[in-house]
Structures are given as C-alpha cells and as structure tokens.
C-alpha cells in the first residue's frame, strides 16, 4: 500500500503554480524526507495530502485509496503544521481536551504520560510554552491519535539543535513502537540521513528526485581527478554536478554502468547532503524511478 500516491498533481494559486505534474508514490512503513528550496511546493503537497487544499489538476490518494480530507482519511492521518498553530490562549490541559474531543480515537493517557515525560506543565498556557515545547505538544497530540500516517510540515525549522534532537527522538520512538509512516518536510538537510529512509526532492513544483535513500546514495559517487580529463570522464557517466579548480575536478555522477575510471581518478561515497544540494543546484537534473527491469519485476512478483 502506498501512504501517498499522486498522479499529475498540480495546484495553482491564482497565476502561480505551486505544484506541477507531480507524480509520486510513497510506500508504507517509511520515514520520508520531503526536501526542496523555498517555494518548491513542499507545504502545498503536504496540505493536499491532509485535505487542506484541493488539486487544480491530477489526483492524490492517501493510505491506499482514501481521498485526503475525507472522514476516513482524517481519522488515520495526523498533521503537524508549520509554525505549530495551536490555541495559544488555552492551557495545555484544555488543548489536550480539545484534541481528544475532535477525534474519535485519541489516547489521552498516552498524551498525558508523554507530556509528563517532556515536563510540559498542564496548567501553563500554550502561548507561554517555548517553541520547542509547543512543537512537542503538537506532536504529542498527533501521536495520541494513533495515526497510520504522520505528516510533519517543517517541524524542525523553529527549533534549536537540542529541541530538534528531542523532537525527532520522540518521532522515532513512536515509529518504533507503532510502525506508522511519516512524511516530513525539512530545510535541515544535514540531519535527514539520521532519521529518514526515503527521500523526495521537490523543485519548482516538480518532483526532482525520489527513492530509497540507501539506493540513491549507492547510485551516486563523487569522482575526483585531474581537471584536464574531467570532460572525458564526464562522457562515461551521467554527471549531476561538476566542480573544477585549477588542477583538480570533482564530478558527482550516477553510477548505473560499469565504466572504469582512468588512472589518477578516485571514486568516493557521496553524502546525502552533497547529493541533495547538487540536485537542488541544478533543477534540470532529475532522478526518478523508471519502469522495473525484468529482473526486478521477477523479484517483485515472487515477494
């Protein structure tokens, strides 16, 4: 089952296209990082997935075949929006009561236990909590809904490094306990590798890169060698990015073939941050899953 599946999804706000021809399928049981520069369409895609926006063109379904925003979908999809919009004038206890009454499934004991563990005072007004505590509260309310899919829009943006760590630790612990799927958008590319196992890169409203992070990293390499041979090496590989100095060149390439490197050239692993940044720097480059090869199809059918 795919937790989110889109086909030619497009969303226009007046004359601006926030998403264009966005086709993707996110398998269940993954922790998905949605990455892209400002205005790439990350929030729009997530809003479409939780029913906060309707597509201009194309289709989107969640948790198999549910329409986003339908009652069946809302019961199973939890969302923590950017800037954590909670009722600031309510106490934490009242905020929990509001969330409990807005949902047919809500584990209040679990929520209260988590808040106790996080040392968030139940009588304090939500607006008086720190940014990190507000984010933790929003996450706690979402987790208490026992979701099948948790959608987090820029959850780390306002948090300091310690709060970011605590926040993601809470997410990872809940995933380990319940096994639900997570999609989170983030600007903090350096920390993605520790949490996510699946990556979607959006740029200018389109999907630029999509796939299992391990596969994506295995499919790319950083080649370095004499600058005068860089063009020759570049012809053997699909080059994503080229960096040239006076005597030395670095090529970030896809390693789909078995091309041998000339002497003097070295191949190194690429980090996720390098990979993402390279693709973001060149919006024309894309890395999308193609049709399954006969071997892959056979494996897929057997499993």
């Amino acid at each position, binding site marked *: 089952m795919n937790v989110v599946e889109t086909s030619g999804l497009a969303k226009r706000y007046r004359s601006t296209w926030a998403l264009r021809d966005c086709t993707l399928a996110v398998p269940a049981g993954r922790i998905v990082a949605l990455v892209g520069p400002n205005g790439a369409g990350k929030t729009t895609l997530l809003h479409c997935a939780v029913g906060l926006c309707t597509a201009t063109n194309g289709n989107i379904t969640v948790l198999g075949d549910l329409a986003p925003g339908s009652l069946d979908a809302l019961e199973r999809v939890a969302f923590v929006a950017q800037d954590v919009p909670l009722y600031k004038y309510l106490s934490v206890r009242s905020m929990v009561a*509001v969330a409990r009454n807005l949902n047919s499934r809500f584990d209040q004991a679990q929520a209260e236990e988590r808040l106790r563990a996080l040392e968030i005072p139940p009588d304090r007004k939500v607006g008086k909590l720190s940014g990190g505590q507000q984010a933790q509260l929003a996450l706690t309310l979402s987790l208490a809904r026992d979701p099948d899919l948790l959608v987090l829009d820029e959850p780390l943006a306002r948090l300091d490094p310690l709060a970011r760590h605590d926040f993601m630790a809470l997410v990872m612990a809940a995933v380990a306990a319940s096994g639900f799927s997570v999609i989170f958008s983030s600007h903090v590319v350096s920390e993605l590798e520790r949490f996510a196992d699946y990556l979607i890169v959006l740029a200018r409203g389109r999907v630029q890169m999509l796939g299992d992070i391990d596969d994506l990293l295995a499919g790319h390499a950083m080649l370095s060698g004499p600058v005068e041979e860089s063009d020759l090496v570049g012809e053997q590989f699909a080059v994503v990015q080229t960096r040239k100095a006076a005597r030395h060149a670095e090529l970030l390439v896809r390693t789909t073939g078995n091309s041998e490197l000339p002497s003097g050239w070295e191949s190194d692993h690429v980090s996720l941050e390098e990979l993402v940044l390279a693709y973001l720097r060149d919006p024309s480059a894309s890395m999308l899953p193609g049709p399954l090869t006969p071997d892959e199809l056979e494996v897929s059918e057997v499993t």
Partner: protein
Amino acid sequence: MATVAASPVLPRRREHPVPWKAMARVTWLQRRSTLIGLLVLFVGCAVAIVVGQAGTHASYASFVANGCVQNSFHTPCGNFENWFSDNTDLFSAMVIALHVAPVVIGVFVGAPLLSRELESGTFRFTWTQGVGRSRAVVTTFVLLAVFVTVATCALGLLLNWFAHPFEIIGIESQWQSGLFDTTGPMLAAWTLFGLALGTFLGSLIGRTVAAMAVTAAIVGGLLVASFVWLVHQLEAFGALATTRRMPMGLGVGQLNLPGSQFNGPVGSWLVRAWFTGPGGKRLSSAAANNVIGRMYDAVKGKVIVDPSRWLSVHHYIYWVGYQPASHFWIFQVIAAAILILLAALLALATVRLVRHRA
C-alpha cells in the same frame, strides 16, 4: 448445472456519527470567555427587565383596579398614565439594548468564529482532526446558534411582558418598529441572522477586525433601516380599509397609530389615511390638505361636532388603512421567516466557502 456467482463483498464505509457532545465541549473550551461574557450580558438584561417590570407592577395594578382598562377617562386614570409616561427610561433603555443584541452577537460571536481561525492559522489544526472541517464548523455554528437564539428569544418574551402595561395604557404598541423587532421570535431571528452574517463574512474576509467592522455596519444598518422604514412598509402590506367619521387629528398619509373606538377598529394598527372625492377618486396629499382647509374655513367660529357631515355634503370620504390585531403574528412570522431564511442561506454559503477553501 447452473452456478450462481457470489456477489463481491464491497468494503463498508465507516459510519461517522456527528459528535455533538464532544463538539459542545470543544466550543465551550475554545469560546469560554465569549460565552461567559454573553451570559453575563443576557442575565444583566433579564434582571433589569424583571426589576423594571416589578417597578411598574404597583401602578399598573392600581390602573386595573380603578377600571381604567375599560374606561380611561375618569380622573385617577390620567395620573396613572402620566406616571407611566414619566417612567419609560428603563423600558426604552431595554428596547435599545435588545436592538443592539444581534449586532453584538454578530460582531463578537459570528465574525471571529472562523476569521480568527483563518488569521491565526489554527484552522490547520482543527480542520485536520478526525471530526472533519465541515462538521466542525457546522456543529460549532449550530451549538452557538441554539444558545444565542434561545437566550434572545427568552429576553424578547421578557421585554414583551415588561411592555404589556405600557401597551394597555396606550403609550407603546407592539406594532411600533421598536417593539416589533424585539418580540421573542423576531429578536431570535435577528440574532440568528447577525450570527450567520458575521460567520459568513469572517470566512469570506479571513480578517477578524475587518469582519467585525463589516458585520457591525451591515447588521446595524439593517436594524436601523428596519426601525425607520422596513417595518412600516411591511405593516402597510395588504392593509384593510374602512371609512371613519372623525378625521380630527389624524390627517392623511402614513399614520402608524393604534386604533381606538374613535379613529379605527379597536386593537388595530392604523397605517395610513386618505380622502376620496366625488366619483370615488383618491385625492393626492395636496388635494386632501386643501379639503381639510376648506372644511375648517366652513366651520370657522363654530364648534365642530361632526366634520364628516361637511365632508359627506361635499361627497368626500375619509378612509383609514389598518391592520387588524389578528394580523400581528402573521407579520411576525413573515418577518422572522425572511430573516431565518437569509441566515440559513448565509450558513450554507459559509459551509461551501469552508469546504472549498484551499
């Protein structure tokens, strides 16, 4: 042998009962201070009306005991009438206060209902919870509507009770626009309209202060228009006509006076008066005033016992258009139904806006 294929088992859609109790708790938690403020206002108005009514009770009891209801022309009745005329301050204040109630509710309950959510972004929390955005909005609106409608209906009924002695004595009438719009059903209908308009404008504009200002302007403007013009127009609709012998003090054109044994059917509401001349043709205002002038000139220096005699000699007939007392509740139902219909349309438009807001 024929075989029957088993029909495929279709997945059953889960039923989602409307969580009224849960939404009532959410509404209370989210809007506790507004609801407490409203409750204080409502109770304050109710106490003021009860105290005011108790203050008039002794004088009205004496008025009744002296037989003034049947015949108000003997001596002590005039004193009671004067007392009531001198003690209308609290009554008038309550009429004004209840007129303002629909504006207050539209501005402070209706307008912020969705605009505050949209402005602060909390709609992204509420509309993504299991209850669903349409049901969250509809249940909250219905719960608030029931609360303010019942409360203002009760206040309107209390005001009618307060107004009763003033009406019997002849100082006030429920047909007058002030009291017409503040009966129980009409006040409730105006309040529902104010709430629905405020909610609609809040969802349309998405800015709390702007939505409050526009709501205040529209609901306030319509209430003023109703007070000054609309109620008179409604009451003139389908008026019955009768001839009167005594046009003294009435004149022609719009009247808006209670009928009595002298100027119209008892208990009726006189809405307008006019003359017809020889041949039954209706006279213009200028021509009617000319006739009245000629009549006074003809009887100058004499005591006018019966001006209708001069009028009948000259083939003029004085007509009064009126609404019988039995029509009062028909007009109330019509006016309230129009407001409730508008409120329902605004509520539907709000749900549509919310559903398609993306």
